[in-house]
């Protein structure tokens, strides 16, 4: 994943804001041969009815709205982010069981006692058996796309 530092900070801030509940949102950008280039974020409410401190849900309607918004900016939905309140920034068994398609970048930020901690990126293996860690390469901020 390629992303500007201020976007990573915005993900961390969203996780701190919703703590002790999980935050979630979309990564908008462009798929490239070297990985997804994230150029904008689209935070969305956690639609999970209960246990939002350990579960998140993004509805198909949210996806469609994000997809439309992305296309209006000449971008695509390239992934998702969510927080793990008081839990490590690695995919859980639930994350794997609910995983969608290989090719999306899944960002996870750990929020410990309300303070953002580790932030990691993952992608689903082509055989759906596991998440593989994705390197995070920092880019220059691109204000024109936000």
């Amino acid at each position: 994943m390629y992303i500007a530092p201020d976007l990573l900070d915005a993900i961390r801030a969203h996780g701190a804001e919703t703590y002790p509940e999980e935050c979630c949102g979309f990564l908008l950008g462009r798929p490239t041969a070297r990985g997804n280039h994230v150029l904008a974020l689209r935070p969305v409410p956690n639609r999970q009815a209960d246990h939002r401190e350990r579960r998140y849900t993004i509805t198909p309607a949210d996806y469609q709205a994000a997809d439309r918004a992305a296309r209006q900016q000449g971008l695509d939905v390239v992934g998702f982010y969510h927080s793990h309140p008081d839990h490590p920034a690695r995919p859980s068994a639930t994350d794997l069981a609910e995983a969608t398609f290989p090719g999306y970048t899944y960002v996870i930020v750990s929020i410990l006692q309300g303070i953002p901690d580790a932030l990691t990126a993952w992608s689903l293996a082509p055989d759906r058996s596991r998440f593989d860690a994705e390197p995070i390469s920092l880019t220059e901020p691109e204000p024109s796309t936000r």
Partner: protein
Amino acid sequence: MPATSTTSVTIHIPTPLRSFTGGSASVEVTGQTVGEALKDLVRRHPALEPHLYTEDGRLRSFVNIYVGDEDIRYLDRDATAITPGAELSIVPSIAGGR
């Protein structure tokens, strides 16, 4: 020539699945129902199948199929009839947690 019994429709493919459709953002398929159209899609692009269907052949729970703006769960699901030129979309719902 027998009268044609097929209906040609378009299925829009989410970005990450385009690596399984040769890069195509949409695929023309045939079928009288949503179920038939999806079966035609995976026949044309078999690498899509494990990402859309479970091993026992059911649509994965996070895979939502829309005909236009309507979720087929609120229509007749797989048996939802489609008309020529219909546009189908594959829309994921996303979930997880610690």
